């Protein structure tokens, strides 16, 4: 859906044609659901949050000023609902997260020698799973920004507005997040040649 088509749909909804909203749901539901799912790690929470985000968007549509794409606004609602839930869960569990700041780097990691892309579906699947697991191990601030970028494809400018950061911070934090992910994947030997050619077999982490 182009930006113009999007605005036309929004106008119809604002004029009382609430059924027209379905086009916006269909267009955005996958990314919204996945954003909530990756943020919360829980299918039920993701379902609640993503549905609520659409309902909030519908009821708040009169306040939508069109300064960003509707999808970006929706991602922001989804992100906020996810963060609210995560904060609540942390509070209930009496846990505190350790953040590393953006100056903290992973300068000690070695860049693996990745000679080529995954060669077959098994390798691609393994890489997807390893990346997903690696992202979960990142510090919270790095995890959320990487999810936001990779799942929604939001621009740095939109991410900056959503997270209340400067664009420069978004740039450096994303870079740190990715370096952190490479560091973690390296630790598990995800990119090592020996592992990549043992598709489907258990890899002994000791070597």
């Amino acid at each position: 859906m182009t930006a113009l088509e999007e605005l036309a749909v929004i106008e119809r909804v604002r004029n009382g044609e609430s059924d027209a909203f379905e086009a916006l749901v269909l267009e955005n539901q996958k990314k919204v659901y996945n954003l909530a799912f990756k943020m919360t790690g829980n299918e039920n929470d993701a379902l609640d949050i993503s549905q609520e985000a659409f309902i909030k968007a519908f009821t708040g549509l009169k306040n939508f000023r069109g300064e960003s794409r509707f999808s970006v606004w929706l991602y922001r609602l989804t992100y906020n609902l996810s963060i609210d839930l995560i904060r609540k869960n942390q509070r209930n569990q009496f846990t505190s997260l350790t953040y590393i700041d953006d100056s903290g780097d992973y300068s000690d990691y070695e860049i693996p020698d990745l000679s080529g892309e995954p060669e077959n579906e098994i390798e691609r699947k393994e890489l997807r799973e390893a990346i997903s697991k690696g992202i979960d191990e990142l510090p919270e601030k790095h995890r959320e920004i990487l999810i936001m970028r990779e799942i929604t494809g939001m621009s740095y400018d939109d991410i900056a507005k959503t997270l209340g950061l400067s664009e420069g911070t978004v740039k450096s934090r994303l870079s740190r997040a990715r370096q952190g992910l490479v560091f973690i994947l390296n630790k598990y030997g995800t990119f090592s040649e020996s592992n990549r050619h043992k598709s489907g077999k258990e890899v002994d982490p000791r070597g």
Partner: protein
Amino acid sequence: MAECRKYRDMISPYADDELSGNAKDELERHLEMCASCRSLLLIYQNINVSAAGSLVEPPDSFTESVMSKIKALSENSDAGRHAEDKHKRSTRSVIISIVAAAACLALAFIVSPGLFGLMGTRNSASTVPMASAAPDSAAAEFSSLDAVMKAESGEDTGGEAGDAQPATAGAGNATQAPLTSESSAMPSTAPGAAPQIAVTWRNTSDELRTYYVIFTIEGRLPDGMDENSRTDNSDGTFNIEISVETANRLLKDGFSYEMGAQESTIALIKYTPGP
């Protein structure tokens, strides 16, 4: 390699197509010469492709479920507009949403003739208990959030411990009763009186130690709330987590009506501050 460290932070925005001008040209020249940095770029691109490939589909009923809620909201909205004509009041209003503890408890604050999202207000509020989303869950009415707290701690509940069903709202749950305009037949509450709140919950977990309330507020931050803990929704509203005491104070100030999204764990209350 010391030189590579200079370029490493440029590879990430480059992979995102967010690098331009001289920086981009400079990095591209370096990439031609440096296998290590090319490898890093390839990994970042693989991360991107893998993340895109790992997206899962929402449940089949997702669209239908969202649209049925929206339809209910629209119908209630129409009903609310009629009611508003009769009860005009010019007080600025605030929308409040209460997010129940999803893992442990589902709260549904229902109202009628609920008009979620309409900025006008009414000078009376009526409430109607909403059928619970699960056939075996209990429902009780409370006169304030304090009662909710009691219910939570097991002092006065009809909740069913042992029901391990997650408290999240299920999409397409066919067992829930629709929110209808029949609530207009319910008794009204005078402005400022404590609202009658219908609460449904499932699993009563001992782990739930605090009652958590997230208010979605439109406009100014009410006094006594922590500015730093709010999240901006970019539509003139923001979410904020507040204590039950504060929630009660706000609710006692008066509210006009509220609207629960049927079985949702998130309910919305329209709050009108006193003069």
